[in-house]
């Protein structure tokens, strides 16, 4: 098939699907319902394929029956036959609809949750140890020597300054740096105090600190909201361009060639 014609067919499908799904912004109509069910059907069909192709085949089947290099016949990976036990354990989940043996479905669930639970203990320090250490910011000017990418007031990358100039520059702004580090530590502590559940807060200072924590959290959430906006708007702009610019161009391209 001619690539341009095929592209036009594909784009047309995409445009129709986009319009169909967008119609829900106006109202939930039969049009939306149609595309919703097409979407769900295709997604389910793809999941069935994907599941075997990306998970069960490479992670389970190939491990179980091993791998041999097709050209040289050399052993790539031995057959770990014990992988077969995943099959009966997985099958136990299907007892969930049985009244008598329904409890067995908890076995695979238990294994999955157990693995997850064990990992939590294992990774806790890896995840949070560094963050705790990173919070212990000293009240001194850390300047440009701070950890990469974080607490730098001015970026050496785009200044064109020599190291001496930067050092000089830092000596001039050091109070703001120390203050910033202090703000950092206080923010962490205030926000943490908001998440104390089992202590009754007494005294104006404590209640105030707790409230400060909540406000700071809100500032944080606002910042996330604000910075996510670019990625999201980029997508809608692109959709509009897809429908109104590219599709139209593609039609033109095919017809121009035909003419």
């Amino acid at each position, binding site marked *: 098939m001619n690539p341009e014609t095929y592209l036009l067919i594909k784009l047309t499908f995409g445009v129709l699907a986009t319009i169909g799904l967008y119609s829900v912004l106006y109202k939930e109509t039969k049009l939306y319902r149609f595309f919703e069910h097409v979407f769900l059907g295709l997604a389910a069909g793809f999941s069935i394929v994907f599941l075997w192709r990306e998970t069960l085949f490479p992670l389970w089947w190939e491990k179980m029956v091993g791998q041999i290099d097709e050209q040289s016949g050399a052993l790539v990976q031995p057959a770990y036959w014990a992988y077969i036990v995943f099959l009966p354990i997985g099958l136990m989940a299907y007892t969930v609809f049985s009244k008598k043996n329904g409890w067995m479905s908890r076995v695979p669930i238990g294994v999955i949750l157990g693995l997850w639970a064990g990992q939590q203990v294992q990774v806790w320090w890896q995840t949070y140890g560094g963050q705790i250490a990173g919070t212990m910011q000293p009240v001194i000017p850390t300047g440009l020597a701070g950890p990469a990418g974080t607490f730098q007031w001015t970026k050496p990358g785009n200044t064109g300054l020599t190291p001496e100039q930067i050092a000089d520059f830092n000596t001039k702004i050091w109070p703001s740096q120390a203050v910033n580090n202090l703000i950092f530590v206080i923010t962490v502590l205030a926000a943490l105090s908001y998440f104390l559940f089992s202590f009754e807060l007494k005294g104006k200072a404590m209640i105030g600190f707790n409230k400060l924590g909540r406000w700071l959290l809100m500032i944080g959430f606002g910042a996330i909201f604000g910075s996510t906006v670019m*990625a999201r708007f980029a997508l809608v702009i692109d959709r509009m361009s897809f429908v109104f610019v590219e599709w139209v161009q593609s039609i033109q391209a095919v017809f121009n060639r035909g003419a």
Partner: protein
Amino acid sequence: MTPQKSIWEKLQEIDRRILYLILAIAVTVPLWIPAKLPVIPDSTSMDLYGQLMSVPEDKTVFVQSDWTVSTRGESQGHLEALLRILMARRIKFVIYAAADPQAPQVFRNVILGLNQEREARGLPPYRQWEDYIDLGAFLNAEGTLNSIGQDVRKLFGPRRSADTEGRERPVLESPVLSRVQKIGDAGLYVVVTASATIDVAVQRISGKTKLAAMTTGVVFPSVLPFYQSGQVVGAAGGLKGVYDMEFLMANGVNVVSPTGKVEAQFPAKAELTAPPLTEIEPKTVTFARGQRYFLSFHAAIVLLIIAVVVGNIGMYKMRKNRRGA
């Protein structure tokens, strides 16, 4: 006297569908307005442009494209900007996906579009085998990038492609790849991605060759530490990154002025100079998708801010009325 609803009160109860319509119009209309907004490119973008413009002409650039339709809004602009620069400089490149089997279809469409554009401008198209090699997809980013780092010829060896006369030959014999012995021979290794494949690339490839990244706005913050540590030599992030690249393509960065003095156009590294793309190939498109989208983006944000302001004024007025009543 029946209480007359003021305009502000009506705005308070505005149907959300009207808001949606306004947004749709606000982002669509600017797509046809050719405004070139001023911008100060990020230093990451300036470095990326500088790196791309200084790739020696006899080197092949490796492009790893790991994005699909759902993040087209940002990633397609990145890939287009990247390929425009390479095509204008007649730099050969090899392109492939390291993680997603669906990614090749998307970058093929981009190349197809760029070639159509070049033909329309009377420029020679970029041809498979001669000018670039499309390798399709490799599965499993971890394994692929490891092999690329260790022995790129072994990984690419089995792939075949039609040469200019239509014969199927191993891609390693092509003009694009015949001079690549190891990954260090690459002029630049650019990862265009919407996912964490850039982390894998940094682990496996940085240090072996120059690595650059073009990522979506969501992934971009995780690239910055690599940029600061020098593992990534340049990076473009999000929609702003697309516009940065296009802006730099049109204006260059710190070009030498006719007087011979380096003009700091943007606060950039003094040693980083690269001319605008149009000086190399006059008919090149520089402003494209990023420019169109950037104005729409501004319109959307301005609309959002207006909506918030109007909402607040309305609330204030209503409160005042209620208090007055």
